[in-house]
């Protein structure tokens, strides 16, 4: 368990460093950077490389935004196996729904109870 914590810290940190380099060296905006990372996650997932990373680093691979791309691709791939090519469309949000639902729900709740502080 301790090893998992260590690797979660290291791998998660490294993915964030990649993001920081995209900010500072490539001078990309946050929107561009996140899009690059999420696309990278989808590509790694398609190549079958993201799953081993999750097994190795746990939250270090599931917490960064790259895992969102992985979740979308994995969901689609699972549906394709079950129902053929239409699964590319139907399976997309299967695995990842909690992240988006949570964001919308808590975003809306946030707007009900909080005022921006500037």
């Amino acid at each position, binding site marked *: 368990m301790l090893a998992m914590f260590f690797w979660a810290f290291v791998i998660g940190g490294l993915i964030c460093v990649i993001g920081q380099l995209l900010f500072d060296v490539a001078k990309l905006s946050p929107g561009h950077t996140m899009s690059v990372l*999420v696309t990278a996650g989808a590509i790694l*997932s398609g190549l079958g490389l993201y799953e081993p990373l999750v097994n190795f680093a746990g939250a270090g691979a599931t*917490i960064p935004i790259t895992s*969102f791309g992985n979740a979308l691709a994995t969901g689609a791939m699972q549906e394709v196996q079950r129902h053929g090519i239409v699964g590319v469309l139907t399976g997309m949000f299967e695995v990842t729904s*909690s992240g988006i639902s949570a964001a919308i729900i808590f975003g809306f709740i946030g*707007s009900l109870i909080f005022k921006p502080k500037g």
Partner: protein
Amino acid sequence: MANKNKNKTPEQIAYGQLEKKHELKRPVLKNCIRAFWVGGCICLVGQAFTYFYIYMFNFTEKTAGNPTTATMVFLSMLLTGFGIYDRLGQYAGAGSAVPVTGFGNSVVSAAIEHRTEGYVLGVGGNIFKLAGTVIVFGVFSAFVVVLIRTVIMMWGGF
């Protein structure tokens, strides 16, 4: 850099070089170190929640990801609403933007900001102002990747 100069006059190119000399350089190493440790810590918290859900609520390693993500987004709602996440972002840069809490922050901050335009057009219409691009490119790239993979597999690739 070279193709940025394509449409520029010689005067603009010369000024660009002068301007570069005076620009305050970004502290890349310092930013990377901060991004590393803050990002790492957020992932540690995520790992702790994952184990919490596995051992306390009988989720499996595969299914614990969902409540963990939801919890992290909830935490980012609190930090954003209390005005802490923007300070964290200035300090940690990608360390706070890359984790899913950064995604949550982008959604919650847009929602909170646009309440002044009403819940329907303001909050509803602007909530994905920043996060929309991640969702669009995530879905589209997953679509392309899986399509290509499926086609290759159909033709006896894997």
